[in-house]
């Protein structure tokens, strides 16, 4: 890779003096709401994106105003957990500085949108007082580490959850830039900030780690660069199977790009070995990843380029130990357990359906108000799932009625119970109006599309089927569209490619079926597919498996 021309982001990272760049100057520039171009790249590694309201571009330009720039701040929240006090603080910050909507991401963390440049420092300072930060939440570093969200499912959840925190800490950049720029920490005079993991170039591309606790693959473990699958025997955590090279991003028209599920390369037992293996997988990607073409820079391409066996050898040599053979595991589901559940020591959990992860008050349901009321009781923690829902957790038996009352009062129980199975298994990326890559609508369109699909499902009596549908605004989208039974990927405004045949557990990718469909074509096509599925499916055969058998395998 050394002889090839580095991508421009590589130069920006190297020249950034530990991710400082000219961010301070950019923040002080009162003439614009934007940052200097290089700083726009750097700020991602501080957990923020510069965005603009794309719906308003033309109107603002006519008014001789620059685009309406604002910032998305994404928290680093390994495993997706907040105390009630932190939720209250978060809500306050969201109300004062952002659009007011709290967005739960597909990676178990929180994003606030619409923050003006002049509000960034106050926001990050407020988060800091709550012991929250956004370090490395975006950019070419290890992102938020996610972990199976359902603590009630297993007695060892807590133990596994701690790994998310440990991995997150181990992979944090060592620079003090975040503290200097956002929290006004005095710069060190004799600055020595050796970062043995990231050095001065960080990673060639984003890097994602997830930990799954079978039998639930709620966090889509195989779509991550590193997937850890907890191996449990007799309620004991034995260690983890390690999968590498997952990743779903592709580029329209670039045949060299493809979605890929992770490959299991072995098993590690101790914590020390687990962390060491993760560290060295990252260091291999750091050294061997493609730094000239960002579209081919993810670990999956590195892996396929050098081959699995070479990769394993390199890993063993860097670790000083070889991985053991992978242990058997079994996923049987990939979902959130909506409603009330109880764990082995009698604590209660309520999983609230939050459509598209948007915590706000609407005419139908006041999720935001309900969460505030619940947080103010101090009787429930907040956990976020990889499907963008919220688990109100660790509720004592005696507090359950009070929480239930608040949930009923704000319509959350009704909302969670009556939303269709498809709606509850749907996922969409942010897209318009803020995502700079968006080619089509997603988050603000999918709910209404589902409303039009629901009658078709009803026609064929398929409403109870838990069919996963995921929509993204572009092939890079964050909604894991290739790992769904129905995937819709935007190609142009109002047009989508339709993918089918993915399985229900996230172990088989879907395949392109039709291209450039508008809404009525999507509905017509699904109507035909559902009709056939309804009449020809075997017992318990999921839509994804049926589609694969019926339309995909025969084609290939």
């Amino acid at each position: 890779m050394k002889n090839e021309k580095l991508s421009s982001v590589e130069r920006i990272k190297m020249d950034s003096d530990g991710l400082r760049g000219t961010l301070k100057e950019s923040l002080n520039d009162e003439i614009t709401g934007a940052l200097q171009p290089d700083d726009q790249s750097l700020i991602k590694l501080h957990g923020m994106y510069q965005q603009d309201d794309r719906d308003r571009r033309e109107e603002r330009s006519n008014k001789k105003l620059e685009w309406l720039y604002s910032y998305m701040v994404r928290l680093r929240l390994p495993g997706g957990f907040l105390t009630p006090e932190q939720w209250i603080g978060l809500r306050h910050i969201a109300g004062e500085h952002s659009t007011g909507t709290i967005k739960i991401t597909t990676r178990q963390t929180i994003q606030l949108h619409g923050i003006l440049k002049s509000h960034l420092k106050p926001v990050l300072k407020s988060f800091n007082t709550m012991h929250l930060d956004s370090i490395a939440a975006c950019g070419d570093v290890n992102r938020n580490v996610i972990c199976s969200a359902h603590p009630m499912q297993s007695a060892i959840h807590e133990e596994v959850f701690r790994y998310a925190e440990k991995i997150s800490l181990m992979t944090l950049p060592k620079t003090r830039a975040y503290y200097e720029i956002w929290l006004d920490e005095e710069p060190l005079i004799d600055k020595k900030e050796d970062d043995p993991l990231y050095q001065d170039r960080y990673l060639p591309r984003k890097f994602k780690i997830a930990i799954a606790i079978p039998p639930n693959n709620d966090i889509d473990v195989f779509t991550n660069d590193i997937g850890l699958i907890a191996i449990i025997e007799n309620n004991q955590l034995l260690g983890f199977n390690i999968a590498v090279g997952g990743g779903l991003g592709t580029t329209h028209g670039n045949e060299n790009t493809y979605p890929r599920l992770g490959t299991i390369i072995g098993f590690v037992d101790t914590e020390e070995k687990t962390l060491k293996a993760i560290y060295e997988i990252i260091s291999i990607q750091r050294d061997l990843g493609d730094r000239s073409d960002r579209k081919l820079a993810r670990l999956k391409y590195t892996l396929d380029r050098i081959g699995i066996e070479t990769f394993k050898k390199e890993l063993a040599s860097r670790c000083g130990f070889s991985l053991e053979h992978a242990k058997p595991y079994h996923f049987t589901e990939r979902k959130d357990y909506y409603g009330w559940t109880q764990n082995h020591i009698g604590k209660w959990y309520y999983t609230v359906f939050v459509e598209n992860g948007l915590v706000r008050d609407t005419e139908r349901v006041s999720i935001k108000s309900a969460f505030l009321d619940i947080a103010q009781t101090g009787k429930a923690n907040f956990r976020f799932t990889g499907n963008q829902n919220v688990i109100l957790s660790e509720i004592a038996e005696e507090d359950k009625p009070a929480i239930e009352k608040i949930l009923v009062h704000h319509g959350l129980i009704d909302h969670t119970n009556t939303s269709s199975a498809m709606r509850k298994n749907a996922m969409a990326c942010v897209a318009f109006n803020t995502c700079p890559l968006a080619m089509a609508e997603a988050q603000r369109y999918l709910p209404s599309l589902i409303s039009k699909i629901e009658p078709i499902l009803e026609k064929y009596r398929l409403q109870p089927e838990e069919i996963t549908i995921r929509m993204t605004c572009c092939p890079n989208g964050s909604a894991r569209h290739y790992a769904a039974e129905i995937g819709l990927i935007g190609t142009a405004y109002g047009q989508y490619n339709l993918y089918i045949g993915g399985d229900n557990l996230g172990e088989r990718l879907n395949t392109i079926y039709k291209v450039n469909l508008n809404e009525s074509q999507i509905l017509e096509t699904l109507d035909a597919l559902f009709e056939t599925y309804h009449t020809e499916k075997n017992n318990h055969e999921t839509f994804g498996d049926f589609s694969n058998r019926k339309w995909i395998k025969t084609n290939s």
Partner: protein
Amino acid sequence: MLADNKLKRFHQLIDDFSYEELIWINGYLAGLAVNSNPLIGVKPNGSENKSASTKKISLVYGTETGNSKRVALQFAGIARKQGLNVKVTALDQYKLDDLKNENYLFIVISTQGDGEPPPQAKLFYDHLHQLSLPLPNLNYSVLALGDSSYPQFCKTGEDVDSRLDAMGSKRILPLQKCDVDYDQDAQQWFEQVLKFFQQQTGYDVETIPKVETTHQPRTKKFYEGNIKTNINLNDRGSNKQTYHIEIDGNGVVEYEAGDALGIIPLNKKILVDFIISLTGCDGNQIIETQRVEATIEQLLTRHLNICYLNAAVVKKYAIITGHQIPDNRYDLVDLVHEYPLRDASQITEVLNILSPIAPRLYSISSSPMAHGPEVVHLTVSRHSFRVKEEQRYGLCSGFLGELPVGTPIHFYIRRNRSFKLPLLDKDVIMIGPGTGIAPFRAFLAEREATGATGRNWLFFGDQHFTTDFLYQVEFQNLHSTGVLNKLSLAFSRDQADKIYVQHRILEQATELFQWMKGGGHVYICGTKYPNGKDIENAILQVIEQEGHLSQEEAKNHLKQMEQENRYMKDVY
């Protein structure tokens, strides 16, 4: 100027001297001064005109926009070259006690939109009207500058002229009223002044620059344009509505950056038609009023104010029609409806008592050199009529910002000669919060177009960065290309504490003072209260603090800059 104690001694010395003796001494002293300092004055052209050159001649001016000052300084310069010893004084500097000692007093004075004297002349004006002593020794003439679009055209000049007459002074030349295109009328008046001294002394005036002598009344040039673009610059969610309006002049419009554009708002057709039908007159009948000759319909539409008539007009209407009308302000349509004319022919009398429609003035935000000579841009806030009076008239006619593209616009140019860019190599500091930005957009475009080498610094402020940063993209571009060297911003409502441009001025005191000391020109545009006043105070504080001067010295420093045309204000 003499110190008080010296002045006292001087008064004691001349206490019992006769008028003739004083004249002689005056000339004698002037001669001494000329001989002792080669920089003062120029030697007269011959011995015969000694008596003329030794006359004490004062030329005073009272100005708001700077036009009177410009005229006065220009004439004084010519007069001095002719050997006339003319002393020029701004009326706010004029010692009121001197009035009784004047021989020849020439007054160039403008009138505000509402008939008031310019603030600079207010003290003089009031003093003149309170003075009980006659001024029989005074010879005078008044040159009045005004805008005939206003009902009180040249009112202040008229008042001063008649007041001096009433006090027994001798009017050596009749009052000369000038409209906005005042050059020729003013020059004719000044020629008469010079001729007067020539006749008195046999003094030769051949070297005066010749001016075509036409005795037709000067009228300002009107343009028939169309609205080409009309955009609300403020974004959604703003408390403000500021419109960027581009007017196509349908040909070359003679103007310069810094000038203002005047619009006579038209009365609504529905009202005019209603008045014509209620009075039963023929709308096409041509009538001659004091100022214009036009059809009744034209007069009612574009010349005469028919809304919110003042008490004097209502009273005259009552006399004409013979009705008892309670004191109040009425629209004409209500008057002719409730207190009808005796017959249609009375319309002529009624039209003659109506005041002209007052124009609205807007600072121009374009430069012919940068934007092309056939378009004029305006930056108009919904609530920024330049004269308070006009808001009342605003009741009748649509606001400019509401006019759709294509609407015909009847407009004229009001020169503002005291608000002009300096030489290309001079530094320029522009302070224009809100719609005060208008002339500076023009200035900056012109500085760019002319390749000016001096630096440019703009202070701008409004409520919110996101919604109210007028012309943001243009200023960003000028900043990145280096035309705009510094851009200091104050958005008052983006944080808990209100921040205004004056705070930014104080924050940058050191650098600002350096620019000023280096010969920089300072311009202020915007509303007089509170912006104009607060900004001036901040500038005074900068001078005081950075120049290590007392408050008084700082004031003098600023005054000095003003006299050198390095401190200019267009506040309204």
